[in-house]
């Protein structure tokens, strides 16, 4: 990891009797995109709010660009751009006015119009804030966080409320911003977003870091194992094929859909299954090996009590399970 620009050690924060953050530690290297994942109420927002000086930690140590977010707040605000989850703008301010205003707070701002264009707001410059859609307001908030050319950008719920096209535009922009050397801390509950953008992720649950690493590394560590979907050239063989596969030691679970078999099992499942079918004279077609995703890892780590991203393909109605 490059030299850390954000260091959080043993962070603790409570609101009254509620312990929002119990024990959070992580580091972010310059030019990295760090994702902070976790279910609702896990302490993600509280954590990033202490990074930006909006909240005072009860315990632990936080350094951002070597600065103490409380003591050196003025300096920090010049060098860190923040997009909050719930910060609005005056209803009648136009996009261009907001960009010019926030640019004026900085000595060497970015070109607000260029930023707006990169976020798909190029034709909305004269539109008032209240007339923007939720997604457009969100993109404007991102532009305002970046207009001061920050060294670090903290983005809370980056693409919540955006349609798929807008999300891709935002992701592309964030990737470009990172390529220009900006360090980015991204709070998200979208696993596909974290997989696509983040160099590393920290998973927070109940105020604690429960896992951290690269998205691929976390996914590989998930114990769900290999998943294999296949069809047979002769649909009539489906039941017999499923019975045959269920007998293999590599297979732990078999389900049959209307026209496909779904297998779970060990990493060497694929070869064993294809060979067994071949020996029995059945030809597997449409073989689809699914690698474990960050989402699987997340579910394993924190349980499944959160909004989910859509499955890559709809699961077929299963008529039978393991025997």
């Amino acid at each position, binding site marked *: 990891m490059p030299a850390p620009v954000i260091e959080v050690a043993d962070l603790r924060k409570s609101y009254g009797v509620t312990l929002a953050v119990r024990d959070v530690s992580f580091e972010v290297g310059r030019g990295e995109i760090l994702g902070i994942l976790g279910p609702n109420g896990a302490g993600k927002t509280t954590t990033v709010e202490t990074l930006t000086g*909006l909240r005072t930690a009860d315990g632990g140590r936080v350094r951002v660009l070597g600065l103490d977010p409380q003591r050196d707040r003025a300096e920090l*605000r*010049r060098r860190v751009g923040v997009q909050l989850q719930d*910060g609005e703008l*005056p209803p009648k301010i136009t996009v261009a006015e907001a960009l010019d*205003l926030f640019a*004026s707070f900085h000595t060497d701002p970015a070109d607000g119009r260029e930023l707006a264009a990169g976020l798909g707001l190029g034709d909305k410059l004269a539109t008032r804030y209240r007339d923007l859609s939720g997604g457009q307001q969100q993109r404007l908030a991102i532009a305002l966080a970046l207009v*001061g050319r920050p060294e670090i950008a903290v983005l809370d719920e980056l693409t919540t409320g955006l349609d798929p096209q807008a999300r891709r535009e935002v992701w592309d922009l964030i990737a470009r911003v990172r390529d220009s050397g900006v360090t980015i801390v991204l709070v998200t509950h979208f696993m596909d977003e974290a997989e696509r953008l983040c160099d590393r992720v920290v998973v927070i649950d109940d105020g604690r870091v429960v896992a951290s690493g690269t998205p691929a590394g976390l996914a590989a560590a998930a114990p769900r194992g290999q998943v294999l979907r296949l069809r047979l050239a002769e649909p009539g063989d489906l039941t017999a094929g499923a019975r045959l596969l269920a007998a293999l030691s590599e297979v732990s679970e078999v389900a049959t859909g209307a026209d496909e078999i779904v297998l779970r099992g060990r990493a060497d499942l694929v070869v064993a299954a294809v060979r067994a079918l071949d020996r029995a004279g059945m030809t597997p077609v449409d073989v689809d090996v699914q690698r474990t995703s960050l989402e699987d890892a997340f579910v394993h780590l924190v349980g499944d009590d959160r909004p989910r991203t859509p499955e890559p393909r709809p699961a077929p109605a299963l008529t039978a399970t393991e025997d």
Partner: protein
Amino acid sequence: MHALRTLTLTQARLFLREPANVFFGLLFPTVLLVGVGLLLPGMRDPIAQATDPAALRGIDVYLPVVLALAIATVALTTFPPTFGAYREKGILRRLSTTPLAASRLLVAEVAVNVGVLLLGVVIALIAAVAVFDVVAPRQPVLVAATFALGVVQMLAVGGLVAALVPTAGAASVASMSLYFPMLFFAGVWVPTPLMSETLRAISAVVPLGAVSQSLTEGWFGSGVPALQLGVMAAWTVVLVPLAARLFRWT
């Protein structure tokens, strides 16, 4: 400086995009003055008790009251609700993550509101001269000094509201519950000369009552209203640090 200039211009545009602000800040004093002068019977006649043929008319006496009302209208109805709304919508919190200091927003808002007030007062004075041919103040320096001190004092009252209110609605409630009693003590409904001795004494220590009485003395009298000027200075000295201390971003 660049930030403050851009912020002030932006806040001025936003101010003028609210029709209620434009009406109450710029036009209300004139509308009230002209309306009362033309529609209330007897306002343009010399006050009955006066024996002097050049005696003051009701409308002459009402002009300083309208000026006091103009100050209170801006300080209490247009100034604090902006802060309530900004706090409610997280705009203050949003701004607190930028290098902008809280004081800059306050300076910009004061500049915009005072600018609007001055424009509104000029319009009212032009109307007063053009429509009713009101007399010029006998002590213009005292009138100007009272007006300036009155503005600072009333913005301090409004500033205390602005520092504390969590929402635009709360700002309106707090402001209105100060605004209407203050208008009463300033003589908007009962002219100060018709108030009882006790009421007039209370009025002298109420922020806007002191403004109204001091303006009236400056316009028509020859004395220096030391009590009223002292009252205004005292409110200012107490309220400005209090508002600054209590100001919250969230």
